[in-house]
């Protein structure tokens, strides 16, 4: 059992539409569910995990309905975003309890703890764990029954770079083994590093779908706006506008800065420091003025 199908799914809470008519298929391999905070990612994952009924449409795993179907958990492993676990247990007791609830035992629990490299702290109470350790024990609890589908809600939140790399490697391997791994994130770089396939959700809508190169291109090919301050704004403006990577420049007198619209992101970012150096201009500020995820995502929705 490996393919999750979300078919014309909507979910509303009172008057608020959290997920709006989304259709997508999550196949084996690693899929990243990307979107800004509040986009509806958790709502979608909760529906895929059987913890929320769709208001409309269906969520199925190889044709079997997920909502109110306890037997589906033989095939699904869930890593929730929320921190709360059974903090009064040790890591080993917690994973063992999860194994027992699947009708398994110590061998499987030990294997899952080994998979996430948590044996060294398995006899400590969960209440003493760091965020990264909690995340790994949660992973172990989700892996204990060797599921073919793994759902992770913002798994990298609060992890340090090393823990992040380890988890990414583990998830990548799970995907290579033919499991369906779906994780949500609001950080493009995270998704790009790990997922072979990306689904973008913005404001409850399905904004884009494809491999990360396609999404990346969509994101980087859009016009970028920068706010630039230098010790000679007009000379800098003249040199920049001569290059085709720049589509427009406005001298903002009130701000004492240039507002530059670049159309070729890669070329512009290489050009700006070179021009400054060649003309002996000192750059004081270079800041993207529309780099917020929301603006990137809304560009994607419009694309």
């Amino acid at each position: 059992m490996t393919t999750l199908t979300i078919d014309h799914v909507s979910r509303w809470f009172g008057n608020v539409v959290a997920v709006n008519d989304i259709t997508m298929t999550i196949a084996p391999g690693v899929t990243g569910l990307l979107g800004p905070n509040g986009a509806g990612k958790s709502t979608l994952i909760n529906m895929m995990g059987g913890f929320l009924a769709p208001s409309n449409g269906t969520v199925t795993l190889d044709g079997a309905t997920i909502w109110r179907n306890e037997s589906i958990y033989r095939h699904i492993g869930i890593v929730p975003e929320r921190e709360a676990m059974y903090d009064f247990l040790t890591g080993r007791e917690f994973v063992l309890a999860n194994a027992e609830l699947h009708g398994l035992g110590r061998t499987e629990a030990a294997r899952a703890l080994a998979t996430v490299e948590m044996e060294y702290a398995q006899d400590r109470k969960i209440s003493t764990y760091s965020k990264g350790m909690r995340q790994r024990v949660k992973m172990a609890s989700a892996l204990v029954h060797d599921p073919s589908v793994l759902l992770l809600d913002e798994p990298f939140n609060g992890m340090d770079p090393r823990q992040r790399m380890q988890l990414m490697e583990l998830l990548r391997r799970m995907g290579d083994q033919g499991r369906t791994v779906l994780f949500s994130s609001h950080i493009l770089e995270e998704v790009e590093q790990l997922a072979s396939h990306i689904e973008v959700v913005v404001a409850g809508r399905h904004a884009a779908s494809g491999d990360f190169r396609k999404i990346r291109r969509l994101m980087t090919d859009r016009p970028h706006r920068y706010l630039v301050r230098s010790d000679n704004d007009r000379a800098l403006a003249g040199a920049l506008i001569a290059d085709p990577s720049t589509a427009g420049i406005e001298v903002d007198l009130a701000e004492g800065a240039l507002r530059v619209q670049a159309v070729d992101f890669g070329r512009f970012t290489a050009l700006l420091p070179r021009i400054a150096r060649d003309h002996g201009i000192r750059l004081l500020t270079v800041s993207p003025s529309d780099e917020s995820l929301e603006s990137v995502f809304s560009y994607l929705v419009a694309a």
Partner: protein
Amino acid sequence: MSTTTPTARPAATTPPRATFFHPTVARLTYRALLGRRRALILFALPALLVIIAAAVRALSGADDATASGILGGFALATMVPLIGVIAGTGAIGPEIDDGSVVYLLSKPVSRQTIIFTKLLVAIGVTVVFSAVPVLIAGFVLNGNSQQIAVAYAVAAAVASLAYSALFLFFGTISRHAVVFGLVYALVWESFVGSLVPGARTLSIQQWALAVGQRVGAEGALSSSVQLPLAIGLLVAVTVVATWYAGHRLKSLTLAGEE
């Protein structure tokens, strides 16, 4: 890090069998119940009852009326429902509140099994921390004269069943289950019940007293409800509350944090 490839498993459409008890669910439930700070009340209230009983016995000697007053007025009217609230709501409410119930629910275990098990643990805890101390206090107070100690202990045990089921159900429907529980136990049963005689018909305490009345000597205990009606209502409340709690758990939704 080592991993294995997925293996074949039973079809996802075969529902898990509902049983009455799952040892892992039970272990998690009682450890959670006895590990929380409010569990201190579980120990404090019975200890208080036994201390009061010992003090009364020492100061005024064995007296049936005094024994009935303490066991009926304090133990059955206040202590048993309070412990029922703590055990019943505590067996599931906090897990739903903090979201850790996900780890129980994302398993191929029937939700009815989870509720049955939690109910059994809640009943066990309520009986141990209320019926047993009532029995001890009764023996301390008057040495079980007129079967008063046993009768009140039986009443407490019977009440434990219904309170546990009712408050466990409250735990599945509201974050404020403890408040609802306290309002029912203290405001409805004790306060309204003492002012409006009709309200006593809908009181677990009175139903339990009707059962205890049967055990105790003639006239030792009194209830406003006839025994057959009391038993019928006790069974009905326990069964309906348990069934509905399972139903609630089956449809439990977890909203995201966004």
